[in-house]
């Protein structure tokens, strides 16, 4: 455990007055130093022979998130990568969906849902995102697993670090860092593989012909992974992460947090096995300090919820394990709410309080926005049209005295197959198209199409007249877009 402030006194400062003298002492100068070097934390990863319940849950989360992360770029769809964010060509491919820059509104919807989801699960269960699914925790867990494989569990690691330098120590450290770097580089490569086809990227890397920005970003993200998960670890959570700073603002007395049941555990003490703990005047806490040993952020949960706690429930697992051994019920450290502990709710009764209006409202909002986003995506028409009317040449007179206006249409076929479209225009009596009304656009591309509209001068009121130009796919009339524009008459 480390303190935030250390007061280092000057050697020449007067000695503290002997006990018994009044508290008043002469004013003096002291040196203040706030920088505290990080004390290495050696979380214990094994309690007992198999994985503990919450530990299993955490590893399930690691498997789930990483199978998705490392696996998705390798999927194919119609011969191309299923998930590809092609920044250069400004198209995002998500399975069958091809999103263009104009579709960024869907990202807005996704971000709103993410924000609301964040509020929801923070209000319900505190920092569980941190403890179970945050990439920082996930990668730190993977790296710590590698460390345990190579260096051993907590006691072995602590001994190794205290050892003087030796061939064996250097070898172990080199092996660990090599493994870490390998995982970090593969992570960087996978990340870049979302933006450029990963199969080609892997071939490039294997033949050492990767260059430019791809190489830079692989190294950048690889270095970030190695640095954050290998070296920084809990410092990211404690000092750097913005969510860590504001998450507590979303808590209230009904938020599930990792809590030590003080009323049950105190007074703590090892006690003896001869009589019951109650007779010895001791609470359930045997002061084994296992909860401190397993904590990845190095706190003692028995002091209460602290800022550093990432709600990973490692201490819950550790304490439950010990409680079973000493024949006491589990749950001395458990997920509970502040109010539940104060008012001693029964085990099942807590949910009625957790599912409170705030949580239900978040849930309802998420449902509404999700349905909205899903509908918008399902009903999306793979066609976009922009009408740009000629600004210089406003209107002209043509054969037979008709008035003509020229337009340029930007037709974007956002689907992947080429399509043929046809034009129509309405808004004035006898408005006719005097250019080619049918045209094709290749898949996932934009085409500039010329449109000439004619009308009789007597049908065109002076000034600007609103018209509507429609573009529809020939084979599927439901793929259609209408755009407004203006038809100008000639001055009389």
């Amino acid at each position, binding site marked *: 455990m480390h303190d935030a402030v250390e007061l*280092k006194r000057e050697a020449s400062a007067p000695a503290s007055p002997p006990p018994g003298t009044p*508290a*008043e*002492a*002469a*004013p*003096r*100068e*002291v*040196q*203040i*130093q*706030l*920088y505290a070097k990080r004390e290495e934390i050696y979380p214990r990863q094994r309690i007992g022979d198999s994985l503990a319940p919450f530990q299993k849950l955490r590893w399930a989360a690691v498997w789930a998130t990483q199978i998705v992360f490392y696996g998705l770029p390798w999927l194919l769809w119609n011969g191309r990568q299923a998930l590809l964010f092609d920044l250069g060509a400004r198209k995002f491919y998500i399975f069958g969906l091809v999103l263009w820059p104009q579709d960024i509104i869907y990202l807005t919807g996704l971000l709103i849902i993410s924000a609301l989801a964040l509020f929801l699960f923070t209000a319900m269960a505190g920092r569980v995102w941190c403890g179970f699914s945050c990439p920082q925790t996930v990668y730190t867990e993977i790296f710590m697993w590698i460390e345990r494989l190579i260096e051993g569990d907590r006691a072995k690691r602590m001994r190794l670090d205290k050892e003087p330098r030796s061939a064996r120590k250097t070898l172990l450290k080199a092996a660990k860092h090599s493994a870490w770097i390998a995982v970090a580089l593969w992570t960087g490569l996978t990340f870049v593989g979302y933006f450029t086809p990963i199969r080609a990227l892997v071939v490039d890397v294997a033949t050492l012909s990767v260059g430019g920005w791809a190489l830079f970003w692989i190294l950048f993200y690889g270095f970030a992974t190695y640095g954050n998960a290998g070296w920084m670890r809990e410092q990211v959570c404690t000092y750097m992460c913005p969510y860590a700073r504001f998450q507590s603002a979303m808590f209230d007395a009904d938020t599930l947090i990792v809590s030590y049941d003080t009323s049950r555990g105190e007074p703590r003490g090892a006690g003896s096995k001869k009589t019951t703990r109650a007779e010895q005047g001791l609470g359930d806490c045997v002061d084994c300090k296992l909860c401190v040993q397993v904590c990845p952020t190095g706190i003692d949960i028995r002091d209460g919820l602290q800022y550093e706690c990432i709600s990973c429930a490692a201490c819950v697992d550790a304490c439950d394990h010990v409680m079973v051994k000493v024949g006491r019920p589990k749950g001395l450290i458990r997920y509970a709410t502040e109010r539940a502990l104060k008012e001693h709710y029964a085990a099942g009764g807590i949910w009625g309080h957790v599912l409170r209006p705030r949580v239900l409202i978040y849930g309802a909002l998420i449902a509404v926005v999700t349905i909205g986003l899903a509908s918008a995506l399902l009903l999306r028409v793979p066609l976009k049209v922009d009408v740009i009317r*000629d*600004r*210089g*040449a*406003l*209107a*002209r*007179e*043509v*054969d037979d005295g008709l008035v*003509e206006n*020229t337009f*340029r249409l*930007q037709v974007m076929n956002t689907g992947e197959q080429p399509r043929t479209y046809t034009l129509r225009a309405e808004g004035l009596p006898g408005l006719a198209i005097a*250019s*080619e009304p049918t*045209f094709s656009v*290749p898949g996932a*591309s*934009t*085409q*500039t*199409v*010329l449109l*000439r509209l004619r009308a009789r001068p007597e049908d065109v009121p002076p000034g600007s007249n609103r018209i509507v130009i429609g573009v529809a796919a020939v084979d599927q009339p439901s793929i259609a877009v209408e755009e407004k524009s203006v038809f100008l008459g*000639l001055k009389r």
Partner: protein
Amino acid sequence: MNEAGASGFYSAFWDWYIAVITIVSVVGCAVFLWYQGRQTVKARVDAKGNIETTGHVWDGDLAEYHNPMPRWWVWLFYLTVLFSIVYLILYPGLGTQWQGVLKWTQTGQYRAEVKAAEARFGPIFAAYAQQPIEQVAADARARQMGERIFLNNCAQCHGSDARGSRGFPNLADGDWMYGSEPQALVTTVTEGRNGVMPPMGAAVGGRADIEDVANYVLSLSGSAHDSVKAIRGKFKFDAVCAACHGADGKGNPALGAPNLTDKVWLYGGSVATISDTIVSGRNNVMPSFKQILTEPEIHLVAAYIWSLSNASAAGKTSTPPSPAK
């Protein structure tokens, strides 16, 4: 002193002004940082053992300690000072006398970009510049290039389909006032044109005379007209108008006098409009593009325009919509 400052506004004082302020600021920041960025600071502890505050009090009860700054913050600030020094060595940030080790200038960067573009696109343009216009017009890619140049430079007046509007010629109708050879097109774009029809009202006569001439002009193209007036108007036409427009009214490309026997009207084909033209004259200006477009670009856009009126010769039947990126 550079020549740009010959006006007398400029003096070497300003170089020193900028340089001194910049250097003093950077050095000052570094020094200030050195003294204030100490990781260990002295503070006084009062009689009760409380660390004393700085003594300033705001808003009644807000006070502050004199604590050391975060180490990471101080190091980042040092990094910015280092960056400034390196930047000012490499780039001309200290007035005009110091050009920087890299000798970077805005015009230098522009010229480098133009050179790169020239190296990249020059050969494409040069290849087309060698070919005669008819051959360029037959090449679909060259037509697309020409169309893009047209849309950027010509469409504002001539319309994006090149069919013009009142006062701006239709470039796709095969009707040329200055001759139909491709070279005439190139000259028009390069040098511009100034088509002047002098006001002829006084020479022609009164209102009735002018209407007669207008009707005769309409008769030349077979448009609807008043035959009686037209016959009268012919005499005036031969006397006044034939000099520029030709006895048969077929126009004079050397002068840019339009052909009156076709149904192409720059301002409209009504008696009123033609009368107006005769009375007030017309002054049409096609600007010169030789300062705006390079010769190869003019060559390409001329080929495009030529292809609009010579579709069959250009090897296509209609103007296709062009793909745009």
